[in-house]
């Protein structure tokens, strides 16, 4: 048991923490000596401060809109008896499968096409795009919260105060930590995003980092300029951990009984319309526009014929990265959940969330600097580097999903098993694994989806040879082949939907309905 933990910790350090530490400390090594000189870049000009303000305002706006959409969706789903509820409970995941840059491309073309009817500024266009991309994360977390709250207090509230006051006065305050956590996730996603604002020609602070890196080739200045973002985001992670201490991010347990505040009438009708509107905006509009742009079936056939190798390559890379990510995340989450509250656990939680805030371009450079060494030459120019990059960048998500799953297991079960056998591995295999099957599938799903659509890390560390689908899409975009870009994006989304359905089917096979109850 101990040696497995040591191996996992060592791998986490090698793959994740060493590159991040390298990036954070690199600027202090100036001309071969330790120096604070590069920190002069932190004296921001008024222009840079304005950009930072724009970025913060942009992230706050995107988060507010995503909160409105995400919380409303979750509340409608869990507290209003909607028609086709099961479909709605699954459909909001689809926007997660559409990468934000694809949403941006689609909405940009939509706003261009309709510019004679109405005008939307780049700021609000980018805000809308990010909100539509990220609201499902809030819904996912808030749904978990709503499923886990004590229903007795709601029932008492309904008897004494009525439906709406109970929702405002009891239900929402009870899921406040989940709402705040969801909001923090979206805020972090939004403030580091460069692609979406770039497509809408919105100037934000990450542009400064990109200019230092790609325009002036000043890597140290680029890293130093990213410090304000890293500090803001680290502070937000701490806040989020404070709010969510001991609580689940995602609900995995079966909900035996739901309280529906509204089962008929106007609320049900308005709720259905509202959910259809959100799904239409976040899913139907992008998919229909992509289909329209792609044109005929022959384009898809052509793309599949020419890009099938890249397609298989992308799927294999994402699959193996997710496999490693999930195995590591399992042990890390298990160790964290079995740790008693205290500074060690806090540090562990913090370190495992740190990759979440790293700009991918900096992570790519760090991976090159660390792994382009004679001792690692055997794997440096192999797909293993991309797999490592994906693991380094996306591991916080599977860890969070699995932590939530572990939180829902009664620790006494493990203690009871320990009385019959002292073999920890046997306990994990026989007791723990079957209990967190859903968590493992969720972790695998999140890791796969994020890895498959990655561009930032892949771009810097992809070995010579075959390309990945996101890179091919960008190549076609530059070439002006809009139909090919749309077809590739649709293929990517379809693969992810197939993957999601497969995961769901596997879940149904290994966790049959009677077992879940």
């Amino acid at each position, binding site marked *: 048991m101990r040696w497995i933990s040591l191996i996992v910790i060592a791998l986490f350090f090698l793959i994740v923490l060493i590159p991040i530490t390298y990036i954070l400390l690199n600027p202090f090594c100036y001309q071969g000596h330790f120096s604070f000189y590069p920190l002069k870049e932190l004296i921001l000009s008024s222009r840079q401060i304005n950009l930072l303000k724009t970025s913060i305002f942009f992230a706050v706006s995107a988060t507010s809109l995503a909160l409105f959409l995400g919380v409303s969706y979750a509340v409608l789903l869990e507290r209003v008896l909607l028609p086709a509820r099961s479909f709605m409970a699954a459909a909001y995941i689809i926007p997660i499968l559409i990468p934000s840059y694809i949403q941006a491309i689609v909405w940009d073309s939509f706003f261009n096409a309709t510019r004679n009817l109405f005008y939307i500024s780049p700021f609000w266009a980018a805000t809308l795009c990010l909100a539509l991309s990220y609201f499902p994360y809030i819904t996912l977390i808030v749904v978990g919260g709503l499923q886990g709250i004590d229903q007795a207090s709601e029932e008492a509230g309904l008897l004494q105060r009525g439906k709406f006051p109970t929702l405002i006065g009891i239900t929402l305050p009870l899921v406040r930590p989940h709402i705040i956590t969801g909001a923090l996730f979206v805020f972090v996603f939004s403030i580091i995003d460069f692609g979406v604002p770039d497509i809408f020609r919105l100037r934000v602070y990450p542009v400064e980092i990109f200019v230092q890196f790609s*325009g002036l080739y000043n890597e140290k200045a680029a890293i130093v300029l990213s410090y304000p973002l890293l500090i803001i985001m680290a502070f937000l992670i701490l806040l989020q951990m404070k709010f969510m201490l001991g609580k689940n991010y995602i609900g995995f347990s079966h909900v035996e009984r739901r309280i529906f505040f509204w089962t008929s009438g106007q609320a049900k009708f308005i709720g259905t319309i509202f959910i259809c509107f959100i799904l239409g905006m976040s899913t139907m509009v992008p998919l229909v526009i992509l289909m329209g742009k792609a044109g005929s079936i022959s384009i898809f056939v052509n793309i599949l014929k020419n890009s099938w190798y890249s397609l298989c390559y992308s799927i294999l890379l994402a699959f193996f990265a997710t*496999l490693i990510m999930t195995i590591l995340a399992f042990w890390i989450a298990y160790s964290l959940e079995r740790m008693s509250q205290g500074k060690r656990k806090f540090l562990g939680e913090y370190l495992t969330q740190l990759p979440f805030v790293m700009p991918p371009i900096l992570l790519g450079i760090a991976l090159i600097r660390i792994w382009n060494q004679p001792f690692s030459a*055997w794997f*440096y120019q192999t797909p293993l580097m991309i797999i490592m990059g994906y693991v380094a960048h996306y591991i916080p998500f599977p860890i969070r999903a699995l932590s939530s799953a572990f939180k829902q297991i009664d620790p006494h079960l493990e203690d009871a098993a320990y009385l019959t056998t002292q073999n920890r591995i046997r306990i994990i295999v026989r007791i723990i694994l079957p209990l967190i099957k859903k968590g493992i599938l969720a972790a695998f799903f999140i890791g796969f989806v994020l890895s498959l659509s990655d561009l930032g890390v892949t771009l810097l560390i992809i070995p*010579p*040879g075959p390309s990945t689908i996101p890179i091919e899409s*960008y190549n076609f975009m530059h070439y*002006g082949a809009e139909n090919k870009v749309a077809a590739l994006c649709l293929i990517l989304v379809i693969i992810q939907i197939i993957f999601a359905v497969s995961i769901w089917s596997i879940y149904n096979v290994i966790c049959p309905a009677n077992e879940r109850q």
Partner: protein
Amino acid sequence: MKSPYWFLIILNIFFISFAISCSIKNENQVVVYTSVDQVFSEPILKRFEKETGIKVQAVYDVEASKTTGLFNRLLAEAKLPKCDIFWNSEVVRTIVLKYKGIIYPYKSPSARDIPNRFKDPEGYWTGFATRARILIYNSKLLKGKKKPESIFELTRPTWRDKVAMAFPLFGTTATHVAALWSYLGEEKAKQYLISLKKNGILIVNGNSVARDLVVKGRVPIAFTDTDDANSAIQKGKEVGIIFPDQKGMGTLFIPNTVAMIKGCPHPGEARKLIDYLLSHEVERNLAFSESAQIPVRSDVERPNNVSSWSSLKAMEVDYETIAKNMEAATIFCRELFVR
């Protein structure tokens, strides 16, 4: 599932065999990093592979990284290079690589008849197949209207809010600005950029986006490169090309450049590929491709739609000087346009 051990064993076997297969070196190969669009560079590299039997391993850049992803990768890999050749779609970043000690001189016999202005005197880089910085216009929107002959006309009220340009901090637009810096001098270049901004120039995230805005009729005219414009023309879009300042300072030409990486793992194969890339055949193929690149040698065959290098007036600037002005120009543009 009785035990996960079978699964761990299979996983181990996979990774060990994967690592072994990856560690088997193929010596008869060459690694090339290229910022030239994959659709144009891949067929050429495949042909080299077929003709020589040398396997070409390529990494392509994408415009999302503002064609500097590979440049930064080369800098990061400097201590232990993995790349043999950098085939750049432009010239200035190759010169910056020379200053940073990343590239190594090689005077290819294929480059003997390439004009000196496209070659580094010490042989660090060699240019071929140029693109021009042109103005692309929407022929429908400008039908019957007077088209600008100079980029300086675009600061006039007639063109207010009607011109698009890529972010002048990256790619060939940055090179163009630095070239103006070199040709006009700092003050005049700054004044010109300020005038463009005052006249409502639309700054977009790439030359291809600028071209697409013209194709869709969002703006009547934009700065872009000949390859971007030609790909639209060949798709039957209603656009035309203006080689600006033919009666004045001339049009800026930006050649492809090729350079060998210092300490590269396959120097022999790298030389062979450089010789091939600098051959007449490759210039001809690039001229006949959709990117319609202009050969730098007058005796290279080209299609009718590709102008000959000698028939156009080129901006008289030294690429090394442009490279030296790049930082100042970028910093100024950042202050002016990123706000």
